[in-house]
């Protein structure tokens, strides 16, 4: 029997102010691209942090490639590549040096590291800027370096929090293709995104989290059937699952229209 790439059973996180994640149970087989969706504050980041050993669960089990994340953190981390929503990068290193640093921590042999980092930087169109300091990079360039650093040691399981943040359409497409290719070759990707079109294009299965509870899981087809919404887009399914209804009539703007000048009281200094 194949060991699941990710196995979660009864995972719970309690804070003094309340329970953030309730009794989560699911498995992700190797080679799957699993997208985790949920409204803001649903518990997605807490779940990813528990799966990557950054946050100790209050209850339950989290395993990556059969390794218990809580009991054997260091071994579990060797199976993982984790990119946070706002990835940390050392500003005073160049992009190439940062990728090298991460590769060295994972003890990737020198020749392999050079080949892989060169190829990744080329794929992500960062070869020209790889030897500039990270502090000079734009948001998209930082994101590309973070992606390269996560992939340089070729981890079996990737945890990616909003991987296409700040990327231009071409780079976003490259990353999507890259992730699909990784899954085709046996790697597993667990990602979160708020861009549902991306999720719809890429994912094998979707998990929807709401108020810390896993309220739906399955392929898009299974979710359509479950919600009774044939041919619906993922956005429609998602909004239906979390129970969205347009809460307000947008009466924010005055009857005279949008952009009406505001009466400003003059400053004492300028009056």
């Amino acid at each position, binding site marked *: 029997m194949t060991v699941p790439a990710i196995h979660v059973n009864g995972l719970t996180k309690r804070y003094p102010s309340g329970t953030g994640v309730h009794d989560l149970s699911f498995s992700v087989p*190797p080679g799957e691209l699993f997208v985790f969706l949920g409204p803001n504050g649903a518990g997605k980041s807490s779940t990813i942090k528990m799966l990557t050993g950054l*946050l100790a669960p209050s209850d339950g089990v989290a395993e990556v490639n059969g390794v218990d994340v809580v009991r054997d953190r260091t071994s579990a981390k060797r199976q993982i590549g984790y990119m946070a929503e706002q990835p940390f990068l050392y500003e005073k*290193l160049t992009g190439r*040096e940062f990728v090298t640093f991460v590769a060295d*921590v994972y003890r990737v042999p020198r020749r392999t590291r050079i080949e892989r980092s060169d190829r990744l930087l080329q794929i992500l169109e960062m070869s020209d800027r790889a030897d500039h300091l990270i502090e000079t990079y734009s948001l998209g360039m930082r994101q590309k370096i973070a992606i390269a650093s996560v992939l340089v040691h070729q981890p079996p399981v990737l945890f990616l929090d909003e991987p296409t943040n700040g990327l231009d359409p071409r780079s976003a497409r490259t990353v999507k293709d890259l992730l699909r290719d990784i899954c085709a070759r*046996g790697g597993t990707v667990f990602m979160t995104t708020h861009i549902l079109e991306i999720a719809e294009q890429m994912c094998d299965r979707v998990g929807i989290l709401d108020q810390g509870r896993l309220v739906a899981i399955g392929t898009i087809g299974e979710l359509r059937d479950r919600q009774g919404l044939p041919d619906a887009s993922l956005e429609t399914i998602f909004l239906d699952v979390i129970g969205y209804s347009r809460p307000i009539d947008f009466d924010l703007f005055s009857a005279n229209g949008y952009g009406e000048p505001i009466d400003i009281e003059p400053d004492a200094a300028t009056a």
Partner: protein
Amino acid sequence: MTPGLTRRPVSFPPVLGTVVRTRVRIGLRRIGAARARHPIRTTIQGLTLVVAGLMVAASIALLSRSLFTAVPAADQHLIVAAALAALLSAGFIASSSAALQSIYLASDLPFLLTLPIPLIVTFSSKFVETLAGTLPIGFIGFWFITGYATTSARPLLTLAIGSTVLVAYLVVLTALGIVMVAGIARVVPAKRAWTVLGILSLSIVALLGVWWATIERAGTSTPIANVEIDETVQFGTASLVANLLLAGAQVEQTPLAWAGRVIAGTDGPAAVIWWNGSLFAALAIVSTGVAWWLFAITFSTGTSGFRAASAPAPRPSRPIARWTGVALSYLPGHLATLVLKEWITMFRDSRRLTGALWPLGSILVYTINLSRGAPDMTDPAGWGFWQSIGPVILLPWAASLGTAAYVVGSEHRGIHLLRALPIDGQLLLGAKVIAGIVPVFTLTTVAAILVAVSNDATPVQLGIVVLCMVWSSVGFVTLDTCASALAPNFLTDQVQRSLRLKGRIYSLFAGAVFAVGTALVVTWVIIALEGQPAAIRDLEIPSLAGFDPLGWPLALAGVAIGGGIIVTSWKIGVRRLDWVLSGES
């Protein structure tokens, strides 16, 4: 396991090497980047630092030499122990604020914890980072030991042994800093850790200040038994030696005396060095072990052992906004908004508050030391009061050096937002100055009133003290804010590095000029209030074109010097901020 994904096991030494190499590279690049951008300026700044460092080093070494030549060999370990005790409060504040910054507020720690790096490697790297924060204490200690070594029969051996003990002392300080911060961080959220740390640090400083004040009083009233002081030393040094010996005697049963006996024992029996050295080394090992244990139990399960990460951030209270709403309503709209933003961020940003630990400590020490209420024996009588409390008037300088000097650089990425707003340099500088003056004035004036009352101030003297604090707070905060605008460093997370060297030098220069102006104005006020002291009357200073030079010309000169440097600095600051806000920087 996915096929084809073989990898080497992660082991301690190579990973440690990778982490250390990267940290060193980042450090060198910081220096290298500045040198490449401004080679001449960096060289001049470097040379200035070297010259200033040498002057400070020579002064410490000479003072140390004169102290040790004044006491017999049998009592020299007491001087070392007392000196280490004196450095303790500064060292403790340095190590605990460095620990707070390098471990608990560091943005790279969560990233390092996602990598398969053994926790001991992360701890070692963070320990060294914290240790670097105690290097100024190491600098003072090294030159103090060097001064002592020149009086020893075996100077090189003394220097070698002394330096080793000093490193162990810094290790103990670092471990204590980590232990305290780790203890706090496990119990209270990071946002409040600074407050608890600040109260604890200041309590330690206060205790040491009270201890030293007690010794000074005892030293002036009690002859020191069993100690011979060389009569040739100057009166000031003899008094310091006496106080240090008393202080050393009081810490003789503590680990500080173990260190003292090792450093001062090179001319004596080797057994004393081995025994006391072993005890002190054991202390360093045990304290480092405790620091590691606390670090490990905090971070062995990721960041969840740390309250800041395990609990959602508490909803911030808005007392500042409530209290200040009425006062700020009198300011023009934009200015009030900026001042309020400045206060709210100032008191909620623990990184910025770590910069204020030093000035708060110095205010506390001066308040305790000057609140002695010694009888006034001067002629005319009021001069004794002013001599006692004189240094208090310069307290705003210390306070603004730790707060106002960082206000522009600590905007960090917020400067991009400010650039997008419809504000100019004058408005921003004005807001930062007003925001800085209020806490500095409040804190230092409370200290000044305490000192004045304990020195039996009359109501008139008290009123003048408060006026002096207004002058001093406005002046020093304005100058340091302008210096902050002159050379801000927006690229650092550490508040102490948010002002570049050029700004620091300008801040000291402008502060010194303003201090001269302040001294002249205050002297005029005191003469007008109390009359001329006998020493000045005896000088029979001739009149200047029919005017008494100690009359209004003195005040005019003071106001001209003080006002001149403020106006000049303001113009420089506004120009510089306009440039920064224009986005050309």
